[in-house]
Structures are given as C-alpha cells and as structure tokens.
C-alpha cells in the first residue's frame, strides 16, 4: 500500500499554484489537507504525476467577516471552523456539521477547500454550502470567478472547477438574527460517511417557516437542495402539509444503493430526517409520531 512515484511541487503563491496546474493539466493534483488524496494514492486508486502542495499558502487560510459576508479561506481546517467564534456566530450550522466530519485527527488536517473540491456526495460540507447559499471562489489562468454552490457540485467527485482552477475561498452570507438551523446525519458509527444527512437553515416567524433551505446529502450523486422546502414555507405546518413535503422530497431523490443502505432505505431515512428536522425546528414533537414516515 505505497503510492506510485510522483513529482512534487510546493506552491509558493496562488499564482504559482495556478501556473503549475496550467502546465500539468489533468496529471496534477492539489494537496491540501490530504485526508482523501493520500489514502486514494496509497491504494493506487489514483496516481497523479504531480502533487501541487498548497499547504504553505497562508493567504488561503483564515476566516474573515466583512459586512454581511463571511469569507473562509480554502486552507481553513475543519478544526479551525469548529473552534471559530465567527463561525459560531455567523454560520453555526457549519460548526454543527463539522462535529460530524470524521474524527479529530482528520479534522486537524482536513480543509474546507479540500472537502468541497473533492465533492464526495456523502460528505457534510457540500450540503451545508447549499443550505447556506455559499459562493465558491476559484482562481485560474483567466483570473478569479465566483460560482454559486448550487452550480458547483456536478456529480460524484465532480465540480464546476476546471483542472486548471484552484478553489481559494468560500463566501457565505452572514446568518440573519432570527435564523435557526438543524443538522443531523445517520451514520453507522460516529465519524463514518453518512447514510443520509440533512443540513438545514431556516427563518421562523410566528411558528411558520419564513425561509427554509434543506441541503440533503448521500441521497444522490451530489448534494440536493430540495424544492420540497417550498411546501413548508409560509404555511401552517400540519401533518398534511408535512406529508405533502415528504412526498415532494421523495420525488426529488435519486439515491444509490450501497453496503449500508438500499435506495429504499435511503428514501425512508431522508423522510425521517425531514420530519425530525421540521419537528425539532418548530419544537413540535407530535409531528414526528403518527406514522407519517
């Protein structure tokens, strides 16, 4: 279990990293936290010709709030998100989600940019980006471009990034004061990839959802911002309304089967999650009982 031989370059600047990518194209891979890349290389699932190590690019690290925009550098590690006061205030959903990402040893190395660029459909952060209306900032030979999270994830391990682009940051609107959130996932063990997960951001007024964004993950080839949320916005939430939302959700899902769950089980668990999310956010435990799911 040793990686194939590869060339290694430590990028000296973002510009330098982008130049290296431009020169080597598909043969190059960015090394960020290495928590997915290194195991894949050791298993020889991938054998890149060149590793571009961006670990020393301090400009890509850090969390900044400016006006109503929260900017997170691509090299910001999971552990830093978990401990950040800015994240706790402005994007607490993210802190809740990070607690479910793998284990401390992995969170100490893994980065948000690496996780998003890797685009594992079962991972937590891509779904959070959808729920939080994030913008992904990428830099390439043609300069910088901004990609809405909903356009960024295009398939299993696939994103809108070209092979010459480097993910440099994500931008999140700071959460409005009355907003609230919910995060939960079903995983066989703490730290495992989720069987089904949900990252939700909501605004509740007078017992109703004024806004609700539901980012499901591990239910298809990419994270899903479900349109079923619209069935729950600005309506009185009755069992009937919830039931309609659950049916709508089911219609949007295209889950894969794997060793942990059949597609039918994923559909079922996604419905359970949605019901629990609504019930929890509205503090109405009765919505979870009664055979809705």
């Amino acid at each position, binding site marked *: *279990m*040793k*990686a*194939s*031989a590869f060339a290694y370059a430590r990028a000296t600047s973002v510009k330098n990293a982008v130049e290296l990518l431009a020169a080597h194209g598909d043969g190059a891979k960015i090394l960020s936290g290495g928590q997915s890349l290194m195991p894949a290389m050791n*298993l*020889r699932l991938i054998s890149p010709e060149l590793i571009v190590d961006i670990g020393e690019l301090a400009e890509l690290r850090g969390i900044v709030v400016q006006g109503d925009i929260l900017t997170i550098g691509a090299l910001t590690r999971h552990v830093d998100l978990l401990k950040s006061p800015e994240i706790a205030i402005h994007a607490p959903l993210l802190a809740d989600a990070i607690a479910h990402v793998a284990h401390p040893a992995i969170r100490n190395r893994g980065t948000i940019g690496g996780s998003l660029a890797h685009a594992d459909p079962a991972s937590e952060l891509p779904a959070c980006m959808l729920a939080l209306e994030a913008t992904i900032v990428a830099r390439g030979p043609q300069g910088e471009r901004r990609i809405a999270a909903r356009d960024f994830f295009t398939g299993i391990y696939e994103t809108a990034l070209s092979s010459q682009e480097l993910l440099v940051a994500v931008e999140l609107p700071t959460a409005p004061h009355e907003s609230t959130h919910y995060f939960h996932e*079903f995983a*066989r*063990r*703490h*730290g*495992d*990839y989720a*069987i089904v997960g949900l990252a939700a951001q909501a605004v509740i007024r007078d017992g109703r959802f004024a806004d609700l964004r539901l980012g499901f993950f591990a239910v298809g080839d990419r994270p899903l911002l479900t349109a079923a949320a619209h069935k729950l916005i600005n309506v009185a939430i009755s069992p009937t309304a919830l039931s309609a939302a659950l049916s709508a959700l089911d219609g949007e899902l295209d889950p894969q089967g794997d*060793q*942990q*769950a*059949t597609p*039918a*089980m994923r559909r*079922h*668990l996604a419905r*359970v999650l949605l019901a629990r999310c609504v019930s929890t956010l509205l503090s109405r435990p009765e919505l*979870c*009982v009664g055979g809705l*799911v």
Partner: protein
Amino acid sequence: MTTDPGKRDGLSVLDRPNSYIGKTVPRPNLDRLMQGRGLYVSDIELPRMAHVVFLRSPHAHAKIISIESSTAKRMPGVVAVVTGPELAAIITPWVGVLSHLKGLKSAPQSAIATDRVCWQGEAVAAVVANSRAAAEDAAEHILVSYEELDAVTDMSTALDPATPVIHASLGDNLAFERNHDAGTVDQAFANSDEVVEAEFIFGRHTGVTLEPRSVVADWNPAEARLTIYQGTQAPHMVQNIAALHLGLKESQVRVVCKDVGGSFGIKVHIYADEMATYALSKLLRRPVKFVADRVESFNTDIHARDHRCKGKIGVNRDGTITAFEIDDLTGIGPYSMYPRTSAIEANQVVNLVGGPYVTKNYRARARVVFQNKNVMCQYRAVGHPIACSVTEGLVDLAAMKIGMDPVEIRRRNLIADDAYPCASPSGLRFEQLSHHAALAKLINMMDYDALRAKQAVLRAKNIHCGIGIASFIEVTNPSAAFYGVGGAKISSQDGVTVRLDAQGSVICQTSITEQGQGSESLTAQIVGSVLGVSMDRVRVILGDTDNTPYGGGTWASRGAGIGGEAALQATKVLRKNILDVAATILQSTPGELDIVGNSIVNTSDGAPRIELNELARIVYFRPDTLPPGIQPELMATRHFVPREYPFAFTNGVQASWLEVDTDTGFVKLLKHWVVEDCGTIINPQLVDEQIRGGVVQGLGAALFEKCVYDERGQLTNANMADYLVPMSGEMPDIDIGHVVSPTLETELGAKGAGEAGTAGAAAAVANAVNDALQPFGATITEIPLTPQIILTALGRI
C-alpha cells in the same frame, strides 16, 4: 512454613505475605510500549533485507494460463519475481486435516498458487525488491493470464449436484460432517408443550489486528539456519511447520516473537504467504520481510463465523426445556487451514449448544463446506458465539412462546451449582461451574426488576428499549485433546524456567507468548509471589524458540491456566533449592526459613537473616565456603499440562440494555454487564480488560462486522472505511463481576478468561433487540443487526 500445603488444606503457595495474586499491578512491559520502545516485526531491519509483495488473484476461481514478468524483473530495485512452481522446489505443500476429526478432508495447498487460484486474494507471484514501494511498482507490470472458472460462493448450494466441485480429487465440496444424537430427542419434542424453530444467520467476519501479519525470514546459508521473526501466538508450532516443509530439522529453525499488536487467533495459523516468505529467504539467501497491508489483511487473514444454523427447542409450560436440536452449515473457503484445520469451529458449535442447561436431549448436525472465498478458521472464542447465540436465542424464543420471563426460564434450566462434576449433552465434562451464582450476581448488578420497570415506562413514550440475557460456557486450558490427539505438532504443555541471578533477581523464561493480554505480567506476579521477591526483580523472557522451554504459546485461553501453573511449579522448586542452601549457610533448617521481601527470614518471627543477593553472591562467587557435597541449583524448570479434564470449562452470563430507534433501525447500546467465573484471578484489571475487549469484539459481530462478498466471490469491503469495526463512540459501559470457582486440577486454580467476553456478547445484544421489538411482533435471528435488517423486519422499508 516449611512445606507448601495445597489449597485443599487451607493456605496455598499463593497465600503469602506481599502476594501479587489477585492484585492489580502495572504490567512490566507498559513503559516499553507506552514510550514507543516496543519491537514489532515491522521495526526489524537486517542487513541486505529485501521486501516481498505478493501479486494476488483478482478472481475467486481461475486457471493460471501464463505469468509474464520480464518487464517487472527489469524494474529498479527488483531482486526477483518468483512464481508458485519455482517456489514449490523449495517448500512442500500441506493439507489441513486432523485425524480426530473423522472424515475431514482438504486439498494440498501451496505457498504460492501453481496452476489455479481458489479465492480472490490468493498469491500468484512474489515480487522481491529493495523496498515495498519498488516491489509494488513492479507488481503492476506482471501480466497474468487467467481463465475464469465458476466460483462456488453460496454455502447453502455448495453441496448441490449442479454446483461445481472445487477440488475434483475430493469428490465433493463437503469438508467435514459431524452428527451427534444424545438422549431421546424425538420423544422429547413430541411430549413438549411447545416446540420453537428458527434459523440463525451469522455474518462472516475477521479479527482486524492493529498490527497486520508480519514476518522477517532470515536464512543464513553459513549456519544452515533460518531465523523467523514473526508476530505469532505459537512460536514452536511455526518452528515445527517451517522445518517440516523446508526440509530442515527443527534445530535449524529459530522463531523469535517480540511484541505483537493483537492476535485474537488470527496469528495462530500458518498462512501461505508466510510460508512463501520463509522459502523466499532460503531461495534468495537473504533476509526477506513481508508485512501485510490492510487490503491484503482483509483478503487473507482468516475469516470466521460464516454460519447458518437451524435450531429447534422444546419447552413445557412450566419452563422446562426438553430438548435442543441444531443443523449447522458453515463455509470455510477453498482449503481447510493449516495445521489447526477449519473444522474446529463447527465442531465447537456441536460441542457447546445447550451446554449451560440440564436437558440431555440433544441432536446436532454440522456440515463444513468448501467455497471460493478466503479461508476461515479459528478466531477468538471459536464456535462459542455461534453456539451461544443459537442456544440463548432459542431459550428466549421458548420463553416468549410460553410467556415466561427470560431470567426465570434460565433459573429453571441452568445446571445447578451443586451438581458438579457432570457432563454436557455433547459429553463434555464439567468440573465446577457456577451458572446460578453468576446469574444471581448479574441480576443484582443490573437491578433487573428496576430495568424492566423502566423499559415499560419508556415503551409508553414510544421509546423501545430491550434487555437481553445470555448464559454461556467457555472452553479454556485445552489439553492434548484439542490438537495433539489429531496428529498436529501443537504442544498442549508449557514450560517455565526460573533462575536466580548473581544479584538476587530472577530470570524467567516461559513458552507462553504475549500479544497484549498480559502473559508477561501474570508470569511475573506468580513468580514473585511464590518465590517471595518483588516483581521488579523478575524479568520474563518469552517468544524465542532458542531461549524458552518448549510449549504451546498463547491461544484458546490457556496462558494463565497452563503457563501460569508451570511458572508456579518451577518457582516452588527454585524456592526449595534456595531455602536448602540458605539453611546450610545459616546453619538452620529449610523449615525454619522463608523468603519474604527479597530476603531469607525466620519463619517464626519474620526476622531477616540474609538477603537474596548475598545468598547469590555466596553461591556463585564463594562456593568454596559451602560445605563439601553441597551443589546449589538456583535454576529450575517445570512443565505442565492438564490431565484430568480435557478442557477447564468456565461459565458466565452477560446482559445487554439497548434502545432501538424503530424509525431508523439504529441500535444504541446503553449498557452491558458480564459476570464470569475464570477461577483464580491473578490480575483483576487484566482479566476485566480482557473481558471488555472480548465483549467489544462480540458487539462488533452483533452490530457491525461483516465481510461482504458478491455472488462472484469478490470481497467488496476490504478496507477500514467499509468494513465496520466497533469503535469507542458506539460502545457502552461494560460492568464486570466475578464468581470464583478455582479448578482443582492445578495449585494455581486459574482457568482462561480471554474469550468469555466474545462468547456471549452478540447473543445478549440479539436477545435485547428482539426484546425491544416485542411490541411490533418482529423477531430477528441474523447478525450483524444492521439498520437495514431491522427496518426490513419492522416492515418500514
């Protein structure tokens, strides 16, 4: 105290001032391991050492048409590429059978496949290079042409006439069958108020040692000697087998076993790739290192527990269990493993089902079939989890059927604590068990009635918790009845040598081995206690066939009971020899003297007379001052093997308290209790942690662990992300209690404790899940109990 009265007369040699027996003392090897100063096989670097990587078959069953390795041989750092036929000139094949398992058959297995591969992961070529990475690079350039053959993967159809026979020379795919019929089973069922049947399904799983299997083989042509550094549980067995198949005498093979990162039975077998590594060293005349990586560990470390077992129980309305019947089927891969064979687990299932209970009516059939999957063999608690899950599952089903509490039905059927000695329905002899005392203690520890009340309250709130109970018996301290009588050169006796050094410290060499369970500590505790010296004066040497007495090693819960007794007896002799010479020096008699706190003292008043280091100085450096004719022997060796009972059975009972989320199928383990009886406890913390570790492995089987094969014989989860080992986050607190019934076959009185936890944990969990699901009318008799299985049983998906 002049003699050592046996414990039957009151005080034993263990009941001494400052005894370490029954005390939690730190393990002598702790600092070494905690400071990273352990020596594992991976740490060993020898001059000119090369690394071997095995190219392994991607097919479950295929003919090898050709192997093209010219490119690989020219790659940088490559020493050699060796195929099966080339290696066959160095090492002979083997057949994993034992004569006492009547009818057991298997086919010759080679170190590297010669013309056909029989499971995905079987080695087809060895690449030896100056680094593991260089060998892996070269392995990618070997072209093997295969002709795929039909793979036999489903054990339930392995014996069908339409199914291909894996080894034509054997005639069929049946490796072994055992039938047992005791009492009057048919009549008992006919006369029972109720008869309940179920089929129990167990997931094939494996041991997942933290340190993978590892070998450095070093053939020295100048000495004509092979030194094998290997993490093994049985160094002398490895010595015997390596010599046998390499055409050497045992004196030409030395096996050195330093620190081992977990074994659990995985490292007690002889694996083809390890044999190939020995042979490669001999062929290439240089040291060769093999360290399995995680993927090949999953594909080649023995698997276990792939059983489907139909069970039947008869019960009367008063709770009397009238009979048990089972029909067990297990698939073991393409070969019976060498040299312990792959029939032992099924054989144990037959031995153990119904074992805790009074009824003598018992019929069993076990069939062991070949299949094109990785080999299966003995893993921690061999057969016990199957037998316990089937027995205890049936007992709970019977209780449910007649509306009796699960504890009450056990009270009415467990063998009475004063009924011993007696025998099990399969004919196994019990010296002294304590089922009722253990159950009573468990009920008290868990506050059973309060827990039942709490369960009812929670149920009303739609929270579904369950309580599961599982009584069990465990085979420990095996005599020659296990392997020796079947012709295997696997020693059931162990030896210990103790020697007083020139400064009054003790060197102790033992044939048992240490893989983390505390063999080193328990040996030092016994030697220190019996001799009367502090543990820091006792140095224990293990794991070296050149430097320890001959013996079996550490497996089948035998280290403390057998190796510990040998240590006790050897130390008694040394103690007598020391007191004899002390009496001469002090012009006293041995009866007036004792050894306490590293000194010779008066028995009468405890007054110190002479320190051991002074005695040693006189013996070793001034023997001229001793009277003529006195020749002290400050070194003694004793061996021990149980003779009265083939096995020292232990017993115990476990309980699980858990919650089932009936919407998601997830199980949350809330608490686990174990009460067990391993006889004399030498180190309570070591025993408790052995039991906790065993329970965790049992809980892994209950909820998580399974080797998932597809219908073509491909192992689809051979990695740590997809194969789910139990981790601390999911484990409950595990409370442990003891009942102590020492075996009278030894002065030490210790029985084994290493497998008790694994034996009953899964049964307790499965019973608790079914208890939780009672309101839904769902019963599940399959492990691992995944959310998928639970949701399906609940009709939710």
